[in-house]
């Protein structure tokens, strides 16, 4: 059985991790490489580096830390943030990324997905969608959740998969930051619509939220979270132990 994946997401600005707790044994809490190694040793199945830099100097710092991380941490690395062209794919893949996640870049130019999938393979192209209910309808938001594109969420994800996206990250703006659990309703709707792996994001507040996620949405492949891991609210070894006790397949 392929196991359910637990994926911490690190926000990186100018080559440094934006926020986080001082974990034991960690010399530099803002070092993406140190944190990545820490998470990998704790049992993270994959890591997401999200580049929130705006400047080109920051981009350079980002690829530097990505390269350093990929030379020391040997689990799959996904990179997102500022991916607008196939050159951006090339830039991060060369530095050791395994998958590249696109969001606003795909909204501005959906053919980016097709071009990247043809060049690098679908397994490399992840569509990340920020979705929020507006008058009871799932709407896709761009630019970090600020702009309502007016597109319907499930249709958009289906279109991206048809264009070649090999994995979907569903980030529910409605549950993000609330810490009351993942958006199970939205995730079920996405799982029913596509047959590629689906990664749940937004809403994890405690270990039981992951248990409910995989029990109630058995087609969800992975749970992604940031702050609950960074602030030490949830430790990955304990999370996996509880998942296993609940008969959810995990890598221990």
């Amino acid at each position: 059985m392929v196991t359910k994946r637990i994926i911490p997401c690190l926000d990186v600005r100018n080559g440094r991790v934006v926020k986080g707790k001082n974990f034991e044994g960690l010399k530099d809490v803002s070092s993406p490489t140190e944190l990545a190694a820490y998470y990998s040793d704790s049992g993270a199945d994959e890591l997401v580096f999200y580049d929130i830099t705006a400047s080109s100097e920051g981009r350079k710092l980002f690829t530097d830390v990505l390269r350093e991380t990929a030379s020391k941490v040997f689990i799959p690395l996904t990179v997102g943030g500022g991916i607008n062209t196939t050159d951006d794919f090339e830039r991060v893949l060369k530095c050791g990324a395994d998958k590249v996640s696109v969001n606003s870049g795909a909204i501005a130019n959906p053919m980016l997905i097709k071009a990247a999938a043809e060049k690098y393979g679908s397994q490399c192209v992840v569509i990340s969608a920020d979705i929020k209910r507006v008058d009871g309808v799932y709407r896709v938001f761009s630019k970090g959740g600020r702009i309502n594109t007016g597109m319907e969420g499930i249709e958009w994800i289906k279109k991206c998969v048809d264009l070649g996206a090999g994995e979907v990250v569903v980030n529910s703006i409605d549950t993000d930051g609330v810490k009351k659990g993942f958006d199970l309703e939205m995730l079920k709707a996405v799982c029913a619509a596509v047959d590629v792996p689906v990664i749940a994001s937004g809403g994890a507040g405690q270990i039981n939220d992951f248990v409910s996620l995989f029990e109630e949405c058995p087609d969800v492949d992975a749970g992604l979270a940031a702050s609950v891991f960074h602030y030490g609210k949830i430790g990955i070894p304990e999370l996996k132990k509880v998942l296993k006790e609940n008969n959810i397949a995990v890598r221990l």
Partner: protein
Amino acid sequence: MITVIDYGVGNLFSLESSFSYIGEKVKVTGDPEEISKAEKLVLPGVGAFRDAAEKLKNSGIDEIVKEKAGKGVPIMGICLGMQLLFDKSSEFGNYRGLGLIKGSVEPIKEVIGTKLKIPHIGWNALKFPRGKHPVFRYINEGDYVYFVHSYYAKAAKKENVIATTEYGTEITAAAADKNVMGCQFHPEKSGKVGLEILKGFCEWEGEK
């Protein structure tokens, strides 16, 4: 010293780094002369079988790899590189591989139930149907490794299957014939277990 064959398929940064990380000297090269001098070869690869097979052929590297295999040099194929060790693939038509392990590369979807997702992505456990192959000396049955693939290698001879994984059915996770072996999963992305497999390969002299 490990020689990783660079024939323009996929990104070799992690693979190169993983050998360096375990303290092994590694050279990434597409130069036929360098490859023909190699002590141990790694054939990587991601993407489509046809493109990769053509690139190997056009560069003349296919013949060098076969020659090295014949001389008993240990060879490890990874992911698509493992599939290329087999006779042929039905991916987008019928294409010939290197023929170093008997069998063919087939779509997973024909052997697993329709409920499972394609590609098979993620961490899955290894089983050793015929005991532990020397390359796996530092790991255990049940250890998890990272897979990403839509096709699998169907070995003609059962004894060539040295590891399997369960995804709807038993699929080949690793195969070997004498000094040639291949992993369907990515050891360079399989954490500590993966590094131990690479270490096992570095120490492997190949079977006679």
